[in-house]
């Protein structure tokens, strides 16, 4: 695959960070090189091996026939790139032809099931509910002014667990645009109470975010003699990073002062859910790898 589109950055990284002096960039990029090697049929053997990722419907253009990728499903060598057919997942992936057929062009059992169910409801003419298809993640400008009545209600309620306050502060710190999305003290207490009253203490949460409501549910089922179970699903891996750390504290120290102290340390440490995320980290590592093997 190509690092063409990032080559300006890679070039700067090689010269400034790794002290290389003889760094130059390919004129016209990989596309021009491909044209020279393949279209104009020069006798040169391509130095670029495999498939070049392109930003149009083709997804990838095979520059040589080498199969350098590994199928996401079975691990076999392949050069096929596609996007998961579950439109809400749309994950970009390397997948061999066999698995593409077996998984109906999706990346996982879950996405395959989703596609099958969609087809089923279409063929039966059932459209139980269809939501609008706006897919962007919502971003909100400002936190609303809480009405005085809300503040009053919060003030005259028992204060929430110390860990919850720190989860809220961590959310504001790491996800400033999403800080208003946490449940907040009064609502949190309410969710906790509901959870404590359930028949079997089994709770499903769709959208973990920083783990505020999850912690409330968990505290609630802990008040039941038989305990309970919370299953929380989250799509944003950065939110999983943060929530996972909060849950670890809950596991080790419960929601009291001790876990709050540890939670506060997250803001003071070099932890950052945005940096070191798979794409960026692996990419830098692969750059270093190139430098070592040249």
């Amino acid at each position: 695959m190509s690092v063409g589109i990032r080559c300006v950055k890679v070039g700067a990284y090689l010269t400034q960070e790794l002290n290389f002096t003889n760094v130059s960039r390919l004129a016209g990029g990989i596309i021009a090189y491909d044209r020279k090697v393949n279209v104009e049929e020069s006798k040169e053997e391509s130095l670029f091996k495999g498939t070049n990722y392109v930003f149009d419907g083709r997804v990838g253009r095979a520059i040589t026939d080498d199969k350098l990728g590994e199928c996401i499903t079975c691990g076999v060598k392949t050069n096929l790139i596609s996007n998961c057919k579950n439109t809400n997942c749309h994950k970009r992936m390397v997948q061999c032809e066999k698995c593409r057929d077996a998984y109906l062009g999706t990346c996982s059992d879950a996405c395959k099931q989703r596609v099958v169910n969609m087809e089923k409801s279409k063929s039966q003419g059932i459209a139980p509910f269809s939501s609008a298809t706006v897919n962007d993640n919502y971003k909100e400008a400002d936190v609303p002014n809480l009405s005085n009545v809300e503040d009053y209600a919060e003030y005259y309620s028992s204060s929430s667990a110390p860990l919850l306050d720190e989860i809220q502060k961590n959310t504001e710190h790491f996800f400033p645009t999403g800080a208003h999305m946490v449940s907040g003290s009064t609502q949190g207490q309410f969710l906790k109470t509901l959870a404590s009253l359930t028949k079997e203490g089994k709770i499903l949460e769709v959208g973990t975010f920083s783990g505020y409501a999850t912690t409330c549910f968990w505290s609630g089922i802990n008040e039941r003699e038989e305990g309970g179970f919370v299953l929380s699903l989250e799509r944003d891996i950065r939110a999983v990073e943060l929530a996972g750390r909060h849950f670890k504290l809950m596991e080790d120290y419960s929601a009291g002062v001790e876990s709050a102290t540890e939670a506060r340390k997250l803001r003071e440490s070099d932890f950052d859910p945005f940096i070191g995320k798979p794409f960026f980290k692996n990419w830098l590592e692969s750059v270093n790898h190139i430098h070592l093997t040249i």
Partner: protein
Amino acid sequence: MDIKEGCDLSFRRGESECKLVHVTDALATMEQIVSHSGPYKDVAPFDLIFIDADKTRLLEYVEASLSLLRTGGLIIVDNVLWKGLVLEAAGASNGSEENKDIDGNIGLEKEEFKRSRRARKLAGIMHRFNEAMANDERLEVMMLPIRDGLTMIRKR
């Protein structure tokens, strides 16, 4: 802690377990549970399902939740008042012009409106969702105006 794509983390405290799962599409995972397949095939039914996810697919989340809930269980949906903007959305769909306030603050409100077009669009989606819930004869719906609005839904 091994946090990566598709990870499934389990935490314990006393008699309780909390499982955090990274998913590409929560709805797909829910449907998988409904059809008793995948890694969580035996977890349903739930007593309580809290929906705080992609606001454009709420109807689908509720529909899937109905199949995952025990009799008498509760679905709770967060942010149903969308910072109060659902009021304007409801006004717009009724063709009324309640928003012109007596203090003549229309200009200022218009500014505000322009800035938050996206918020208004989502408020419209939220309002239609609230309407759909209230009109669904299968459901008993109670909307609580606390914080950003919580709707509690129970199967009749």
